[in-house]
């Protein structure tokens, strides 16, 4: 069995690099989607215990929107993109026009817009992974839920509780002229996929 925390520095650097490339792709895609550019800090890539995740995301009861994608094919696992109210508002303003958006009670239109944003962001990371490793990865239809972040995380947590207690968290801080906001990407590969990733990468 492979655990994230057993990885040496080289392997962790490689994961960080996948995170960096994915963030780069995601920012480019988001910028062209909303029609103006974002600045982004160097992403923080961390390997954490799932119990720590809610705290790092602002506390278990913090309201966030999560977009969940399953990956299959040569690698299987889950990607989850989490965005806070501020981020959701910026996206809704940019894509549906300025308005008094309420991320807590989104209608079908808003949900599908945010879901698509999440889809694009997650797929940017999937592409980075696939390209770096020269493999094919399939992606499921994205699924969206807005609620307490702890409750959102219970879904991947339950799935992986059997196997491992760790997950990879990529934190991105975005800036526009007016605001700063944060988005998080969680990557949870199945255990055998993690092993495969490292053998493909020659670790």
């Amino acid at each position, binding site marked *: 069995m492979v655990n994230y925390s057993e990885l040496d520095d080289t392997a962790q650097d490689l994961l960080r690099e996948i995170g960096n490339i994915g963030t780069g792709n995601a920012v480019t895609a988001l910028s062209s989607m909303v029609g103006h550019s974002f600045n982004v800090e160097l992403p923080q890539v961390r390997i954490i215990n799932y119990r720590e995740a809610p705290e790092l995301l602002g506390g278990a009861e913090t309201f966030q929107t999560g977009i969940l994608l399953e990956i299959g094919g040569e690698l299987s696992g889950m990607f989850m993109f989490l965005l806070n109210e501020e981020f959701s508002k910026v996206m809704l303003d940019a894509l549906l026009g300025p308005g008094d958006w309420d991320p807590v009670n989104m209608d079908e239109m808003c949900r599908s817009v945010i879901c698509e944003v999440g889809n694009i962001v997650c797929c940017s990371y999937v592409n980075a992974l696939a390209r770096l490793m020269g493999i094919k990865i399939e992606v499921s239809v994205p699924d969206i839920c807005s609620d307490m972040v702890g*409750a959102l995380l219970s879904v991947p947590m*339950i799935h992986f509780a059997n196997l491992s207690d760790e997950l990879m968290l990529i934190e991105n801080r975005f800036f526009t002229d007016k605001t700063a906001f944060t988005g998080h990407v969680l990557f949870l590969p199945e255990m055998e996929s993690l092993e495969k990733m490292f053998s493909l990468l020659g670790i």
Partner: protein
Amino acid sequence: MKKCFHFLVYDMDKTVVGIAEGKVVRSPGELITYALGSCVGICLYDRTCSVAGMVHILLPYKKTAVNQSNPYKFADTGIIALVKDMERCGANVRRMTAKIAGGAKMFERSDTFKGEVDETQIGQRNVEAVREVLRELRIPIIADDTGDRLGRTITFSAETGQLTVKTVRWEWKKL
């Protein structure tokens, strides 16, 4: 009294029950667990001696899991461990009543690559397992707030046996 000191909190502050944890308090103590999604929070109460216990489980049955180290992770072993913890503090299983919350279906997930385990149903399967285990222990469920598509924070009072549920869309609901 002395042998169960590590379970007891006399403080008025709420005792936090983390993920896959079980805790016991005496009146006037209060237990809280944050953001239950598909997990289930089981609250047991013995009114005669005002002992309250809460466990936050993730999965239905221990036997199906690969990593079995923590009994409080599972409905079956978690509830049994909690009952024992409470009995060590003077409670009696025959007097206990249960209130349960959680077991939501957070994501729709219609399209999945793995046919085997249907994640979307895990909340429901957790609730079913909890009901089954409580039935076997003959502990009646006197209130529940399960299923649906929302996260819940729950608090349970050892003084009154009242369960309070909070979500992001509605405020406190008392059970």
